[in-house]
């Protein structure tokens, strides 16, 4: 095992997540794509900590930031879906886009 292998796995997760985030119409599914991308980021940060600079805690802090970002993204995402749903009964990105018109 080395840094490259970890990063490739992280990149795979990131790209799968990106695919999901780009293609899914449902906001909830889109958020699942984002989660997966952030999972890739977490893995990359952990690998970077281990293989590049284990003596400092910067890599770990990056992981903490990514985890927090996941939590915030989830919470805000669901709040927005709830708000949209309450006002327009919309849970899909395309429909949210139509609302602008």
């Amino acid at each position, binding site marked *: 095992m080395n840094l490259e292998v*970890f990063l490739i796995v992280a990149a795979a997760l990131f790209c799968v997540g990106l695919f999901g985030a780009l293609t899914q119409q449902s906001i909830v*599914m889109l958020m699942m794509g984002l989660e997966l991308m952030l999972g890739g980021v977490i893995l990359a940060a952990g690998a970077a900590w281990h293989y590049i*600079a284990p003596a400092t805690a910067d890599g770990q802090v990056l992981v903490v930031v990514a985890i927090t970002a996941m939590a915030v993204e989830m919470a805000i995402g669901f709040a927005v879906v709830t708000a949209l749903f309450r006002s327009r009964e919309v849970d899909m990105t395309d429909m949210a886009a139509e609302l602008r018109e």
Partner: protein
Amino acid sequence: MTTAAFWILAVLAVAGGVMVFRFDSMARATFSLLTALLCVGGELIVLGLEYLGIVTVLMMTIEMAIMAVFMIMFMMNPAGLMPMTMVHNKRGAAALCVTAFVLLVAGILLAPWPRRRGRAPADPTTDLGMALMGPQMLTMMTLGMALFATIVATVVLATRRGRYERYGDDLRATRPDDPVRGGVGR
């Protein structure tokens, strides 16, 4: 041992990630995402970040469980009876993602990664705590503020009822007008 663990977790993580968008059932999709993220947590443990790995497992389990509820709330699809075709521009996205992946891999393989400096501390958890409460204090405070702002923002966004709805226009009601009575006897 660690190598085997790494590969098993890596394959499971990516497979779980792919299955998220292939399952018909929302519940399966969520829990396949959970599998993927639990494997990421496992990889962190393989890397020696036990605390962060376990915290990832803890957070993701709870997060996915709550996500499942929201999902079912907003899109009823009992056990995948109806195939979901809720995608747009699939082909373009696939092309984009494959390109991104190829570029990333090329970058990863070609980049001159620095040599490993220093060795891991005996207890990375202490290290992390010291960092967050010392040099990285600003990060920690920002995260704290962000989380606090999130709490406020989500409540504002998600609820429709404020104190005027609950306690009347002059806020004089002794007992809030809630659809369900709470447990503190207010």
